[in-house]
């Protein structure tokens, strides 16, 4: 990747700068209607605007410097586990209130377990079962978390 080329590019820094600029701009946009106010009587938008401005400035500096630093690659990435985890957690978030603890937890554990490339179906089944029972006792009965147990 970057290591073989002569171009000076620090890819982690480019990513960092881009993230900071992007989030700073998003913050400025989200707070566009807030009153800025003055130093003595700060409006609700004063600090968010100032801080987002700083975030963009710092992001810009990091981004520009990245083109003058020795090359550095982002490093090997494998986003498959992250994607699987996102799907598993999103399902849990969606199912928890309506379908209850058992359904959402089994979804979370079975799908989530697939994030490991070494996962085996037999192990997943056993651990999902054990953890669901354990969780039901500890969280729902023991700690009294307000979540229905079953969909009906």
């Amino acid at each position, binding site marked *: 990747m970057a290591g073989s080329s002569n171009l000076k590019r620090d890819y982690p820094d480019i990513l960092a700068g881009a993230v900071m600029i992007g989030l700073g701009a998003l913050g400025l946009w989200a707070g566009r209607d807030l009153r800025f106010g003055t130093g003595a009587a700060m409006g609700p938008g004063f*600090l*968010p605007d100032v801080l987002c401005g700083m975030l963009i400035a710092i992001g810009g500096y990091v981004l520009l410097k990245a083109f003058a630093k020795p090359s550095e690659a982002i*490093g090997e990435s494998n986003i498959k586990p992250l994607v699987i985890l996102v799907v598993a957690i999103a399902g849990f978030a969606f199912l928890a209130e309506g379908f209850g603890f058992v359904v959402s*937890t089994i979804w979370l554990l079975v799908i*989530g377990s697939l994030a490991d490339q070494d996962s085996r179906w037999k192990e997943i089944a056993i651990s999902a079962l054990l953890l669901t029972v354990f969780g039901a006792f500890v969280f729902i009965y023991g700690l009294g978390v307000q979540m229905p147990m079953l969909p009906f």
Partner: protein
Amino acid sequence: MAFFDVLMLGFSEALTPTNLLFCFIGALLGTLIGVLPGIGPTATVAILLPVTFFLPPLGALIMLAGIFYGAQYGGSTTAILVNLPGEASAVVTAIDGYQMARKGRAGAALAIAALGSFFAGTVATIGLAIAGPTLSSFALSFGPAEYVSLCIFGLLAATILAHGSVVKAIGMVCLGLVLGMVGIDVNSGSTRLTFGSTELYDGIDFVVIAVGLFGVAEIASNLEFKEARGVLQSTIGRLWPTRQEFKESWAAVLRGTAVGTILGVLPGGGATLSAFSAYSVEKKLSKTPEKFGHGAIAGVAGPEAANNAGAQSSFIPLLTLGIPSNSIMAMMLGAMTIHGITPGPSVIQNQPELFWGLVASMWLGNAMLLVINLPLIGIWVRLLKVPYRLLFPAILLFCCIGVYSVNNRGFDVALVILFGVLGYILRKAKCEAGPLLLGFVLGPLLETNLRRALLLSQGDPLVFVERPISAALLLVTAGMMLTLILPTIRRGRKEAFEASED
């Protein structure tokens, strides 16, 4: 005599059966996660944070504190036995500890590490007991201007002492501060940065950010590649160190304790920085520096004492000033807020049982850890064989249920995804998430006091330099930032951290 009285109060609180139990659970959990690679104290505290909502306040704090210092003990076990540091702070322990294990002296290394940690923990706890009341009575005179400067000092110092690029860390602080402003502004009542979502009116919950950045993101990066597990080199050998080994290590323990206690107080300090500094101190002072890296017992004793002392003394700024110095302390602050306690100088005065109970429990916890670690070492070694694929589903479940239980809604769990992905990207971008968390917890304090200070001074920013304490804090901050520009110090800092990344 007053000191004795409050200490008695502390022990009477810490010695109640339930609090002893929480202390034991914390110490045990800490050791467990210290031993298991792939899950650290930061993630564990983040995950257990919602659970503490169901516990009494003191019990919750005792347990979370136990996890933190317990992990310092456990982390060294794997570092010595299999050359796999369970925690970042145990990385240096692995250098000489593992070499000792290869020579059949693992037992002695483990014993010195545990005894040194216990000694250091005791000293640092006494330090906390002495410094606490002094510092907090001093901080009671702080006005809004002082608090603004203190926040700025704390946040910027934390970025300098943290790993990696200072500029990026300051960016993370800004991002954290912005995230802390989401929700309804208390002064004007207008909603800020909520993107029209009514669920965000109360702001983003601290637990959501902590679990996303440290829990989910950590699982995702742990699962990226097949895990590498170390192999147990040899038998542990005789636990009791020889007379010669004692002689070589007692001074190192004393120095490590001093280094750790002092560095732990600094913002951004804590266990890891203390351990690295202690190692370089030992190597510099040693008459036989060539032995380091080949099983020098001083190279185990110093850092181990230092990381434990640092872990304890990093509670000082949180409990006296209400300023967390690292991400675990930020989470302790979150736990206190969940229970309606505002950390700061008034805690010692208004809720002495909380402060002294925690201090007393720390010493008890350290004593328990000695027992948990030395005679039971065999159990922990066997636990090393539990594969991560069996662990992470349980961690995932704790994350999700925990976050759900804060407000009993799926929305927060969905929000965790956002921060999990952000945390993953930040790891790829080599940005530390710690400063973000510090910014997030300090944001409201900073904003309230900044507004108040400028309102009182009618918009005159000179108020921050006219008040002596505030001016001193800002001067120190400016001094620190200046030293970063000086090339020699920059190089030194870089070397220190590069050594730590191996």
